[in-house]
């Protein structure tokens, strides 16, 4: 029976510059498969390499630790094994199964519940499958991991709720406006965050972008990115008359948008709803503006609170998801173990029969028995083997109902005590 090993690094254990060193390109993955098989004796391998994690899953017939996997990574990426050990984690068998299920269920992600990881796991598996690197054990493991990921997604709300400022702005805008279609977004000032937020709004249907900046050239520059209209900044805020959503992030030390001029703007736009997002610190928009009828003001802390509350919700869902993963991992692993029992018993039987047969032949030669006596002795030795093995085999079979891992220890003990080397991996016949 194959053992499952995994070695990896993720945002939990390593900084970006280390993860970069360990990353595999698609070509490198295809190069690595034959290396793992021929030099490191892993019959099966799947390599998952994303911007947040690099993980190698491998299955091997040889009992032993995952050390060769670390050796492989160290040699392939020319990283000394000391550093490698510091930033990586290694799992074996049941832990490796549970870890992969956590990953595919997006419980191990930087943003818990983010949807990309499941697709990335699937791609990694498809690549290995197409290259012939994944075999019986990892095929089972990865198909199950993908179905666990899907199950978690459908049975929990782990993927719901905005968990970034940009998405929070989109969700709030959807609470205010009937639809984002034909809505105009105004960017006041500049900055990565405001552009990102505007980007989210545009992707969700906002059709027009206007950009106002004290430096007109800068406005032109940003407007180009959104196919938008640059407008000169003026104190009367007249550029906001057509704006439905205002994102402000200037480095002005005082309030740029004050109550009086904005109330005038609202009157000019016939009180159509306006959503103002102030992501500047110090703030750009006077909090008093939030009291104007049909104008709704959210600052960076308010948006953070929305995000935080969504993250809290997700964490609650993550607990439910964690239970699903646990249940699936135990179920999967015990199913995998079940496959080991029969081959072990067969090997044990073969070994005993072998010993008996050899001793019997030696005895027959020395004692010069008649055919009749020989038959008697032969059937007696058969009976002894059967009776000796009866109780341990019975106990071993009963332990197969045991899901706490006890069965696994028995099987391992048997294999080691009796040095059972030719335990076949006949999974397909016992499924």
């Amino acid at each position, binding site marked *: 029976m194959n053992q499952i090993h995994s070695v990896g690094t993720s945002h939990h254990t390593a900084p970006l510059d280390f993860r970069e060193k360990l990353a595999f390109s698609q070509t490198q993955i295809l190069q690595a498969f034959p290396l793992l098989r021929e030099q490191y004796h892993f019959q099966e391998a799947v390599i998952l390499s994303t911007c947040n994690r690099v993980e190698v899953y491998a299955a091997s017939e040889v009992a032993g630790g995952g050390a060769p996997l670390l050796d492989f990574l160290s040699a392939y990426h020319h990283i000394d094994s000391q550093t490698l050990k510091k930033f990586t984690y290694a799992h074996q068998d049941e832990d490796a199964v549970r870890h992969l299920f956590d990953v595919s269920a997006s419980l191990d992600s930087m943003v818990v519940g983010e949807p990309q990881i499941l697709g990335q796991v699937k791609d990694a598996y498809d690549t290995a499958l197409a290259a012939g690197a994944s075999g019986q054990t990892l095929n089972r493991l990865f198909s199950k991991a993908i179905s666990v990921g899907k199950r978690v997604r459908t049975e929990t709300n782990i993927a719901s709720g905005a968990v970034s400022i940009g998405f929070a702005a989109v969700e709030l805008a959807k609470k205010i406006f*009937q639809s984002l279609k034909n809505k105009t977004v105004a960017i006041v000032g500049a900055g990565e965050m405001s552009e990102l937020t505007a980007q989210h709004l545009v992707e969700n249907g906002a059709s027009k972008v206007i950009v106002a900046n004290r430096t007109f050239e800068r406005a032109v520059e940003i407007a180009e990115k959104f196919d938008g209209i640059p407008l000169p900044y003026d104190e009367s805020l007249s550029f906001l008359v057509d704006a439905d959503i205002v994102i402000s992030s200037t480095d002005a030390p005082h309030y740029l948008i004050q109550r009086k001029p904005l109330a005038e703007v609202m009157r000019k736009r016939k*009180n*159509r*709803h306006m959503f103002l997002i102030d992501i500047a610190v110090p703030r750009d928009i006077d909090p008093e503006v939030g009291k104007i009828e*049909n104008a709704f003001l959210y600052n960076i802390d308010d948006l953070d609170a929305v995000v935080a*509350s*969504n993250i809290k919700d997700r964490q609650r869902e993550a607990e439910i998801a964690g239970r699903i993963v646990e249940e699936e991992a135990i179920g999967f692993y015990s199913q995998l173990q079940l496959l080991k029992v029969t081959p072990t018993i067969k090997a044990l039987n073969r070994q005993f029969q072998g010993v008996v047969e050899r001793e019997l032949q030696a005895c027959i030669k020395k004692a010069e028995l008649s055919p009749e006596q020989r038959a008697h002795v032969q059937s007696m030795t058969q009976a002894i083997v059967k009776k000796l093995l009866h109780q341990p085999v019975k106990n071993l079979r009963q332990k197969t109902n045991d899901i706490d891992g006890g069965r696994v220890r028995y099987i391992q003990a048997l294999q080691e005590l009796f040095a059972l080397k030719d335990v076949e991996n006949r999974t397909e016949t016992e499924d």
Partner: protein
Amino acid sequence: MEFLFLLTLLIYLAASILHALFLTTGISRISEGAFWATTMGFALHTILIALRWIGQGRFPMAHWLDSISFLAWAIILIYLGIAYMTRMRALGVFVVPAAFAAILIAYALPQDAPGLPANLQNYWLLSHTTLIFLSYAAFIAAFGFGVMYLIEEKKIRRKAQTLIHDHFPSLGSSDEIGHRCMVVGVILLTLGIIIGAVWTKYARELEWRWLDSKIIFTLATWLIYVIQIGIRQALGWRGRKAAYSAIIGFAAILCTYAGVNLFLPSIHAF
């Protein structure tokens, strides 16, 4: 008839519960269930009205209990229309239980008080009353959207944590659909009033009296809505002001419909 009535009641009750469940859980399958239960209740309700129509030999609109049943029917009709077009279900939380209560009153209470005199029961009456009650239904829908607008607006201003997860329509939707309900209501009410006036003038079965309490209240209600719609166009009275207008208008309708019936003399039976 008894059985059908109970069945209709039960289905409206189930639809009310499903709507409330949807609003708290947000599960889309429940929302579909709520919609179809309401549709089924509406179909049975329609049969119920039709049976009474056949039984009485005329459209059941001569007694105030009949008018309540018709009003409930019209509200559900409008709700189903909006729900079908916008996939929005929140309004159902308000109107389906109201319909449940209305038909409970309409069919469980005995019709002891006399209805309209037989000589008045003709197509004039039929169109006059149905138009006005359809307009009431539209105004009640506008009222529902007004209430939802105010609840949602308060949540947005308070930055309530439950905001993102609730299933109320957006402010823009409540405002816009509420406004359209109001416009439709005003058109229907205007037609209803005109038919009523023309009827009294030419049918000569009745004397036109300006000072009839029902007429005065109805005109006041009409004025509230017309002013709101007009100022909305001219000065942008949308959002909270529109929501308040819808609520004030609803209060006026309550006065016109129930208040006048119960406390003031009028030539209108209901």
